[in-house]
């Protein structure tokens, strides 16, 4: 390859950690790495991008100054940047936001797109991703350029690799289009970290029994720095918001540590979390299927084990 773009996602002026993983993935190719960054957050991010491997930092400016409510315009600007800098590939993070933008860009460019990649091999032009909800892994070859790739969050660890990071300003000649407008972003009540990009997740299943009981998971999550997840049974019973659901019809997650509490381990649940680095199961039934496919199993009552874990992690708060 020669030139690889990385779609930078920032939040509150800071580059998202998962995005640094995308930079590390791009750096596996000997070519030049271009960090592409929509303007508003630009300056504050330069230092970090240089440190994590950006050869060039492309700040994108559009005729309409604030394009955050217009995903079509953002995508058009990025597609134009791919053309302008003759990028061979664009990498991003396959979270909810990155996925949407990458798919828009690929569609505009008529380019091959693979989202949720688990591995990328630049020399052979192949990638690996899940098919059939994690039951199989597919090897796919991309034909034609540019390749648009979204990587599963947390699959590639970030890596310090200082580069020049020359700043380039690119004025994208894109017309404004207002047929699709984001009117508002509604913040929910949970407030905790987002389950789809979290590095540690503690999830509750049907056995948690009520929305009120989810409190014990939230307490544990806050001392662990974890996000709270839930099984579909817990969501359908109204114990947890559907946004927290992990699995086939919920979020696909790939944390460093996944702790499943009172979850039996259905294939549909595994579809969403089987690429977690380490899986811990807390269950009071030795025959629960989840014990057959986890790293550590704790045989016991979640109502005793989870508070004990919270106490062990926060000894000062125990009294």
């Amino acid at each position, binding site marked *: 390859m020669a030139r690889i773009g990385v779609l930078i996602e920032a939040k509150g002026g800071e580059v998202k950690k998962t995005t640094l993983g995308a930079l590390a993935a791009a750096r596996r190719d000997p070519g030049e790495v271009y960090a592409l960054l929509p303007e508003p957050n630009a300056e504050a991010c330069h230092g970090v991008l240089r440190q994590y491997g950006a050869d060039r930092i492309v700040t994108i400016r559009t005729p309409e100054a604030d394009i955050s409510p217009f995903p079509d315009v953002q995508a058009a600007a990025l597609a134009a940047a791919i053309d302008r800098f003759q990028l061979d590939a664009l990498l991003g993070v396959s979270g909810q936001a990155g996925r949407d933008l990458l798919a828009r860009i690929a569609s505009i460019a*008529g380019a091959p797109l693979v989202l949720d990649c688990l591995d990328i091999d630049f020399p052979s032009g192949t990638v690996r991703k899940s098919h059939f909800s994690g039951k199989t892994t597919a090897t796919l070859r*991309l034909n034609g350029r540019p390749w648009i790739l979204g990587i599963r969050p947390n699959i590639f660890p970030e890596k310090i690799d200082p580069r020049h990071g020359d700043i380039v300003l690119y004025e994208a000649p894109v017309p404004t289009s207002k047929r699709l407008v984001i009117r508002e972003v509604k913040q929910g009540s949970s407030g905790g970290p987002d389950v789809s990009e979290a590095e540690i997740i503690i999830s509750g299943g049907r056995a948690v029994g009520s929305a009120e009981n989810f409190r014990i998971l939230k307490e544990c999550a806050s001392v662990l720095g974890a996000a709270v997840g839930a099984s579909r049974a817990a969501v359908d019973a109204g114990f947890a918001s559907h*946004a927290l659901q992990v699995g086939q019809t919920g979020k696909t997650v790939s944390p460093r540590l996944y702790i499943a509490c009172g979850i039996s381990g259905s294939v549909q649940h595994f579809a969403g979390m089987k690429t977690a680095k380490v899986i811990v199961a807390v269950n009071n039934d030795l025959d629960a299927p989840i014990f057959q496919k986890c790293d550590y199993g704790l045989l016991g009552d979640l109502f005793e084990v989870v508070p004990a874990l919270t106490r062990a992690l926060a000894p000062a708060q125990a009294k």
Partner: protein
Amino acid sequence: MKIYVCVKHVPDTAANIRPLGGTAFDETVKFIMNPYDEYALEQALRIRESGSGAEVIAVTVGKEVATSTLRTALAMGADRSILVKTDAYFTDSVETGRLLYRAISLDGFPDLILTGRQSVDTEGMQIPYRLGVLFDMPVAVNVVTFSMVEGRVTVEREIEADVREVIEMTTPCVVGAAKGLNQPRCPTLPDMMKAKKKEIRVIPQADLGFPPPIPTVELLGLQAAPDRGRGTILEGDPEKMVRELLRLLREEAGVL
């Protein structure tokens, strides 16, 4: 008003998928309508029933056996359906998008196109966007609420746990449904009987023009994903188990 709903015929999510070498897998498992597409179809039916009098047309790209998913769509209430018949199980997303576009364009002018947010077999997560560009329509995916008033569609789309974007679009547009949008209906036996009389128009893939010789994204092979096997099981006193777990997570697994 015409509403096209793209539905895909996929293996049941509980089915065991057995790769048979190359890109083949044991296709004798139970197949169903892609779960997200049920939300898309239900939404279309609700729009029709709310007095708009829309015609609801289910469209699929797949092998002959995919007619069974179209039958399900007709039993749920679609007015008629179209099968773009392929020989192979896997068709790459660029080509699937092109085929859906051609088949729908030949049939009529869509006022709305509904899809699922992703297919559970190939997990491509892109057909609605491809259709958006081909039809030159705005697109919103991962939609959990929907309303349409005087040619404007307002949806909420989930972007993070508990964070939603409220999006307004002009019609015609493409909407990719997610779980939570509605509760799809289950067809009754009489519904299924009635569905037998409804139309399934079959269009061979070749009638819609030839695909490029090499697919844009080419499936080379399928492998069974490794399972991690039975874990180390701890039991006994909760406090002791937890202490041992933390030691293992720190020293053995190195994740804390």
